[in-house]
């Protein structure tokens, strides 16, 4: 038996495979394919105070080994979530985390206060990195003072675990991780999508209605991995790695580089079984390598050889 669990403070996750916000709906969309309760956690679709219709189509463009999206946080708002979605997801035997977004700091604060009251939601993911909204979103996550301010404000009202989702569209992401750690974040997740664009040559216009959008998929994995490695060395709180993870091997790279857990995102669009396959793959890898606890491999490449058990 291999121990796969990890913790954010006193919040235990049975394994390190979570699903990324905006790629997994509210979980039930995957019930035909997998037992969602087997996952370490699910981060549900980005939620805002008021309903949002999102951006105009085209919202998506395929790019080599990836995709651009400009969805723009389409969601039905917190009230709908509380009334109709929350009762539906109560029975998942896994940690359900709500990703929250706002245009103003007060939006984040009000959302955090309301979600704090939902007994079965043990954590929020503070999204200060959405590149597809005109106000807020990434604006909070690309300026140190704003990241500090919004984290501080939410920390003051939110009693459970606070995960801050970081933007890669910055010069030094580790600085942002340190700032939110200082302000009481319990964990950081990274990376959100990279700002990108694509032009439809046949139509001679931008592929996306918003011109720029967020790049995801394997194309961004090396960048995400580098950033996770930098952040893991810079902070003491658990780091959740995200960015182009398609396979077990991809996920292991993040764990070895210092992530305590991973989120599976775009991969779920292509293979709805991806998260479970990766979970099973990690367990198999640990068994084959002779490890009994996943913690033995977290940040393995960052330790001195004598700190690591000689296994290979």
């Amino acid at each position, binding site marked *: 038996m291999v121990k796969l669990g990890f913790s954010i403070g006193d919040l235990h996750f049975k394994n390190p495979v979570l699903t990324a916000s905006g790629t997994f709906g509210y979980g039930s969309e995957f019930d035909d*394919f997998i037992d969602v309760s087997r996952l370490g956690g699910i981060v549900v679709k980005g939620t805002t105070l008021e309903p949002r*219709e999102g951006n*105009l*189509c085209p919202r998506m463009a395929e790019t080599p080994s990836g995709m651009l999206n400009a969805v723009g946080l*389409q969601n039905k708002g917190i009230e709908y979530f509380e009334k109709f979605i929350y009762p539906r997801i109560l029975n998942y035997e896994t940690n359900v985390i709500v990703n929250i977004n706002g245009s103003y700091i007060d939006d984040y604060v009000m959302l955090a206060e309301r979600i704090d009251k939902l007994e079965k939601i043990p954590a929020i993911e503070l999204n200060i990195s959405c590149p597809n909204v005109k106000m807020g979103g990434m604006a909070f996550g690309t300026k140190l003072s704003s990241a500090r301010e919004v984290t501080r404000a939410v920390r003051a009202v939110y009693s459970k675990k606070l995960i801050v989702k970081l933007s890669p569209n910055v010069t030094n992401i580790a600085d942002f991780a340190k700032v939110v750690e200082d302000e009481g974040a319990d964990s950081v997740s990274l990376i959100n999508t990279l700002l990108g664009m694509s032009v439809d040559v046949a139509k001679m216009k931008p592929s996306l209605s918003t011109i720029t959008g967020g790049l995801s998929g394997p194309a961004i994995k090396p960048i995400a991995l580098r950033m996770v490695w930098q952040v893991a060395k810079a902070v003491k709180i658990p780091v959740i790695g995200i960015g182009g993870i398609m396979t077990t091997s991809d996920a292991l790279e993040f764990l070895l580089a210092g992530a305590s857990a991973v989120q599976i995102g775009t991969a779920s669009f292509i293979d709805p079984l991806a998260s479970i396959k990766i979970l099973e793959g990690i367990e198999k890898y640990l068994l084959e390598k002779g490890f009994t606890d996943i913690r033995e491999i977290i940040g393995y490449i960052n330790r001195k050889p004598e700190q690591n058990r000689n296994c290979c």
Partner: protein
Amino acid sequence: MAKYIADLKVIENKRLNDDFFILELSGNDKLPDFKPGQFVQVKIEGSPDTFLRRPISIHDVDYGRNTFKLLIQVAGKGTKMLSKIRPGDFLNMIYPLGNSFSLPDINEKVLIAGGGCGVAPLLFLGNYLKSNNCIPDVLLGFRNSERIIELDQYFNIGKVYVTTEDGSQGEKGFITNHSVLTTGNYSRIYCCGPTSMMRAIAGHCKKNDIFCEVSLENLMACGIGVCLCCIVDTVKGNLCTCTDGPVFNINDLKW
């Protein structure tokens, strides 16, 4: 309706003309009940340029042989790669996806209208209607006689009318110009084709108070309602083409 993911075996890859080909696929397991209008998400292996699955309408189903067909237009890199697939190869698919055309009431006068690649879901719809005791008329439009595909497949469904833009077969013009649209006294029209065609048919139906459903196409990533990329602006707000559609009642669309 339960969704499945599986590797399906290519039984046949039949080239119709420069643009179109038909893949016939068979499952190891018994195929679920497909509904006309539904689609599959096909994974295309082997190139970083075909990263996402391709949504493709179910063209026809043969439960006796446990096979179904996809009618595909070569439009980009993905469909070009699919056109080269060989019998015996496997394609990974998620199926069946989306809603379906609604069944007419008894004694309704029904027309199936489409053109170009839009004919893809209509053969299955025609056969399905027939097996549900509805004999629809069929009106198909093509650019010219050389681009007509699969026409003979409709002859045992109902009466078939054709238009070509150059008049090389059937009535000359677009399907919306065909006389049968007005003389047919239809109470219900199902349409799939280029957007301009569907809008024109929708306009005709609204004007004449005819029930009308259209099957829309959109860029999509997941096909199961989570990525929110394939949005349609409707009177009910933004809906997903993949899960709320692809079939929409024209009264719900802001056309």
